[in-house]
């Protein structure tokens, strides 16, 4: 239990024993994670396919170690400069997100489990004294600013489920499937969590087959950053 918490305290998931054993390069970051933006669109990039080489997976794990991801160049001088810079500025957390049409997240009986999950996670974090590291960001500003091409694929109004816990976002992508996944890299919290719009009042879905009413709209409000 303690061991596991330690991993989370660093906001990283535990690299598997097996991939470490097969890839001595795990401690030496490669260029892949230096520019998270380029490899971030999971459903479209080769990195999400079954054919992805394990090295890439290992490299991604390595990328979770914060020090590695801020070094853009391989030259010694640049590395030193980066280290100095890193000391001077407070360390930025790496952010991860899944994005989709707001109706998909908040007005589809199929995805009501999202409310259950977030509630469960809040309860659990309280039990283990862990600080909340996940949010719902309506119309995230970074989407149009940083990813104008992918942004066109998203119906509006949209929302992002965001976290600094990469492993959890990987899990959320697996669960929800029909969402775009983004690895934003180290960016200031204010940028990651900048809200660009409001969530609408959703109309009740035309087909409602459940023998129970839906969760009260607005349950998501407490997850929206202030």
């Amino acid at each position, binding site marked *: 239990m303690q061991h596991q918490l330690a991993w989370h305290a660093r906001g990283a998931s535990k690299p598997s024993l097996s991939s470490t054993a097969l890839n001595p390069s795990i401690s030496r970051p490669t260029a892949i994670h230096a520019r998270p933006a380029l490899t971030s669109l999971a459903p479209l990039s080769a990195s999400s396919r079954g054919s992805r080489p394990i090295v890439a997976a290992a490299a991604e794990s390595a990328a979770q170690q914060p020090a590695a991801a801020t070094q853009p160049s391989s030259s010694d001088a640049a590395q030193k400069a980066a280290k100095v810079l890193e000391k001077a500025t407070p360390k930025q957390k790496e952010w991860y997100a899944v994005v989709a049409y707001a109706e998909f997240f908040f007005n589809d009986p199929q995805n009501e489990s999202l409310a259950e999950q977030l509630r469960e996670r809040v309860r659990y974090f309280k039990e283990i004294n862990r600080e909340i590291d996940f949010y719902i960001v309506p119309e995230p500003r970074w989407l149009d600013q940083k990813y104008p091409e992918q942004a066109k694929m998203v119906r509006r109004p949209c929302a992002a489920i965001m976290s600094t816990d990469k492993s959890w976002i990987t899990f959320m992508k*697996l669960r929800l499937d029909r969402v775009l996944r983004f690895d934003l890299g180290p960016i200031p919290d204010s940028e990651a969590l900048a809200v660009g719009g409001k969530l609408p009042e959703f109309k009740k879905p035309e087909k409602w087959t459940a023998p129970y009413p839906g969760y009260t709209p607005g349950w998501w409000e407490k997850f929206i950053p202030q």
Partner: protein
Amino acid sequence: MALLGGMQRQQLSLRTASGSKAVPALPARSVSRRSAVRCNAAAANAPAQTDELGFKKMREGIKEAGEESILTPRFYTTDFDEMEQLFSLEKNPNLKLDELEAMLNEFKQDYNQKHFVRNESFKKAADNVQGPARKIFIEFLERSCTAEFSGFLLYKELGRRLKKTNPVVAEIFTLMSRDEARHAGFLNKAMSDFNLALDLGFLTRNRKYTFFKPKFIFYATFLSEKIGYWRYISIYRHLQRNPENQMYPLFEYFENWCQDENRHGDFFTAVLKSQPQFLDDWKAKLWSRFFCLSVYITMYLNDHQRTAFYESLGLNTRHFNQHVIIETNKSVARVFPQVPDCENPEFFERMNTLVDLNQKVAAIGNLNVPSPVKTVLRAPLIERMLKEITQLFFSAPMRAGTVDLNPALQSVY
């Protein structure tokens, strides 16, 4: 049940598991050993006692397992060598691990570590469940407990067997068996509130194990975990709004409980995505539909034979079942390459016809006539049922699958 037995011989075998899990039977190896099965669970040494509800007891407070039939949950076994090959990192260096590792982290959190704690209200509530509801309720607990315990046994063994070849997957199976053991134990304690617990050790040693090849284990357990989630959450949310129907505190635990089921299902999604050969050819499409239909039909028929149970909770069995099927189908469509089109009105029309026919078949079973006569009477009904099922199978399916393997499935998010 006789009907379903007949179908099994036709290798179309519909079989349902339990309150929580419905798993289809395949033309499995064990079918031929079917006759040997009936006797074993009952082969307790002590002479059976029968309680006032008609349940046989192995000894005081311990219920003899219900007779195994096509409707009771099964215990599974599989080809462990093939499992080892599938997950071996040496043989499959490209095995997609990121999602499996993410699942491992989710299971390690152990969200429900402190959840399954009983209180004193259980025993009292159990004493208040009387009359016809009591018997149905005990049967529900037994089916659920056996299904959870069946998951425990399979996952535990897989966790043990895969330790060397794939420590990540092995640990996940072990953690899932932890969850299943908790669920089964909780249900068995509930049974003891009714003075009838199951002897799970005895079951482990004496129950028949059904063999499924690994890919069928994946399809079947995936579906059974997801349908388990939808059943539990639907019951929970209904009772939350109608607390007067909450006859026993067990259901209050369902919300957190079924998150485990949902996560187990997600793990099998990750497994299937890591084994795209089980998703991307025409065989995968046919098997996907076959498994969906087997699970949906068996749950539908099974629950319609137990409407008294759902009605005692204040649920309309048909409404509840249709919702569970529609939503399970949507969950499943996120990875299976094809699923039945449940929202085509024809789908539930045929399902309802099956219920009517099945009821007629069951009624024949209760007639006071020699069994060869019953067989003759049933034959035309069974033929019509098979026709309906065949038409369900061949009606236009829906294209489905994960967007990770089929980017064309979704161009707008």
